[in-house]
């Protein structure tokens, strides 16, 4: 299992905007003033980076108590690396994980000018790859990648039969990155294929409900019932319960074109719905189908179908609390790639790994506010030690990369050994000692961001 939030180079700008947005009611309305130099992404951008809870990534390998392979870990690293993308994404610190947090979706993601609803992005807009700009604001929903290996074809309109081709297009076509090496493509595909659906105990074999809830069972019957005006169709015709609730085809369901059938599994956590994210609730989705396909559903029928969708779309432990131990485990997982890469004298992989872990560590450092942050009092010595320990790790990684860059792989290996020694003897203890005064503590987290809101209110009063 991995878990993370992404630090991005738009970071503070984004969260300042994010804090402002609730007060202004609509994501588009952003009057946060900028003078002179501006942020890399448009003001008002929301990357959803500061939550205490995170979507849980279910690793297929770890679910059977296996160990994630080198290739899966490398894919996870690349998935989190802005460096494999190009142009503005790289500059702003956007990675695959920015949109697909822990391999899922990002329902709060919003970039003014590229999003019409939260959780959508125009991948043919002018910002990330001007050469692919189609001159039209046509954002698509950011889908969850859980269970991707079952969900071909890929892309909202299903234009790619291969996951590998789809990944390559995202990197090069949508985010103007350099042509990825074959091993990086293999690795990302391996990582995505390792992300499973969350288990759903309410579903049995062939996607049948295991429930005794009457509304859900009535909803199941309606789901399988032929449409009145076309008995060859039912909801289940396209959302095949025995096949991950997809039929691997594209259909026109009255939303403006042909789009592939999305899975309903874990759908409760994949808002918004439809290809362009136009709907926020199952109620809206059911009402749409009722209208477009003249289903003549009663209010009770619609309620029952929603109950059914909620049962099918459920999943165990969808979110986890972001904690120090989980973060350190993930960093350790990433660093383990260096063992193989240093032995293979693979400078590119060493550099990619170091840069990604560097970002992870710097993000972790920000969880321990420095002495200048007036919202956090107490624990100053502990916070200082925690920050110092993490910065030392950043520098050890830097030394690994520097040594490898001049071909001194023995020195790189020695630095890696030193990194691990330092991690094992003191870093975790230093972080745990400082945890009560860190942003991992919900009270400190709230105090920190409430102070930010206070600052913005000060601005708005004048």
């Amino acid at each position, binding site marked *: 299992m991995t878990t993370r939030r992404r630090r*991005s*180079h*738009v*970071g*503070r*700008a984004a969260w*300042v905007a994010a804090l402002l947005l609730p007060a202004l009611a609509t994501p588009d309305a952003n009057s946060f*003033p*900028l*003078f*002179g*130099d*501006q*942020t*890399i992404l448009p003001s008002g951008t929301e990357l959803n980076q500061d939550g205490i809870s995170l979507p849980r990534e279910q690793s297929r390998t770890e679910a059977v108590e296996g160990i994630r392979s080198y290739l899966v870990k490398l894919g996870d690293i690349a998935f989190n690396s802005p*460096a494999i993308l190009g142009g503005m994404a*790289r*500059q702003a*610190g956007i990675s695959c994980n920015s949109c697909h947090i822990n391999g899922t979706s990002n329902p709060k993601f919003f970039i003014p000018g590229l999003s019409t609803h939260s959780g959508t992005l125009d991948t043919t807009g002018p910002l990330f790859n001007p050469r692919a700009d189609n001159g039209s604001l046509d954002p698509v929903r950011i889908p969850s990648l859980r269970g991707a290996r079952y969900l071909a074809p890929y892309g909202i309109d299903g234009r790619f039969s291969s996951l590998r081709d789809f990944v390559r297009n995202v990197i090069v076509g949508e985010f103007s990155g350099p042509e990825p090496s074959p091993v990086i493509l293999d690795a990302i595909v391996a990582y995505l294929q390792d992300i499973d659906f969350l288990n759903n105990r309410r579903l049995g074999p062939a996607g049948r409900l295991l429930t005794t809830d009457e509304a859900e069972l009535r909803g199941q019957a309606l789901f399988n019932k032929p449409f009145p005006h076309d008995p060859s169709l039912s909801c289940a015709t396209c959302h095949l319960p025995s096949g991950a609730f997809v039929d691997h085809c594209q259909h026109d369901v009255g939303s403006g074109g042909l789009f592939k059938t999305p899975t309903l599994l874990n759908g409760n956590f994949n808002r918004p719905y439809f290809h362009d994210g136009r709907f926020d609730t199952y109620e809206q989705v059911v009402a749409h189908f009722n209208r477009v396909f003249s289903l003549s559903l009663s209010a009770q029928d619609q309620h029952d179908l929603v109950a059914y969708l909620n049962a099918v779309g459920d999943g165990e432990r969808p979110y986890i609390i972001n904690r120090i131990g989980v973060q350190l485990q993930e960093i350790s997982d990433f660093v383990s790639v260096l063992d193989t890469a240093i032995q293979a004298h693979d400078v590119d992989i060493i550099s990619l790994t170091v*840069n990604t872990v*560097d970002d992870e560590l*710097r993000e972790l450092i*920000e969880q321990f506010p420095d*002495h*200048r*942050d*007036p*919202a956090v009092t107490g624990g100053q010595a502990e916070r*200082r*030690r925690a*920050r*110092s320990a993490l*910065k*030392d790790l*950043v*520098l050890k990684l*830097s*030394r690994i*990369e*520097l040594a490898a860059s001049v071909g001194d792989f023995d020195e790189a290996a020695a630095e890696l050994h030193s990194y691990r020694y330092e991690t094992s003897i003191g870093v975790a203890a230093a972080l745990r000692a400082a945890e009560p005064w860190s942003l991992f503590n919900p009270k400190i987290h709230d105090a*920190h961001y409430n*102070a*930010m809101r*206070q*600052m913005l209110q*000060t*601005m*708005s*009063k*004048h």
Partner: protein
Amino acid sequence: MNSAFVCTFGPLTFLCVVLASAVPYSTNAAPFDEATERYRLFMIADLDRALDGVRALRDRVKANDIPRAKQAWIDARIGWERSEVFTSGFIPELDDAIDSWPDAATGFHGLEVKLFGANSGDFGDETDMLILHLTDADERVRSMQLTPQGLLNGVTRLAYEIGDSKVDGGESRLSGTSLDDMRNNADGIELAYRTLFASPLEASDPKLAEQVRSDIDQLKALLKVQNLRGIDPYKLQKASEALVVALQAAGPKLGLETPSLEGTAK
């Protein structure tokens, strides 16, 4: 050995030349003591500049001249950012009061929120408080013992911070001067390094001294861009880390400890 010390960084060039001529550097007689006293004069000049800027800001707000008050704020920041080598390690409690960040209700950024964010000069006593704290800092820098270890820590810490989070819109995003902050930090690093450590390191490890010089040049070169968007964050981060690694290696060569990134000078 006498050295004609010449600074190459902008507004302080003249002052550097004058000071260097007046107090020739000697590696034989307590080099750090002499260099530290020379560096103290720079710190005094920088803090004086910050103080003058905030006083001017107060006067212009009283005259309801907001555009010129903004310029005074920007002028004050130049001196302050250059002195960060000293401030965070030697006077951390004043650093907190003067430069609280990010959620600032007081200090420079508290004023920035109102002045640039709200276009208002409605400060209450915040300007007076900032003047009080800067005056305190200015007085303390004149008499405080400046240890070379503390100053090397400060240089190293600032080098790390440049590569850290300031390219993300910046510390001073409302005033649009974050890039200036970074450049002034880099100037502060160069000033401190050249005044305090360049000659002794050259004597003990010329190759490492060349490396530090080259890393500082690289850092400054990466900041020669039109705006924050022109910065390559990864190159800046790598350049910053390379400089920190070199400065950490320099510590023992200078007869000092490996510089810490978080410790205070106390």
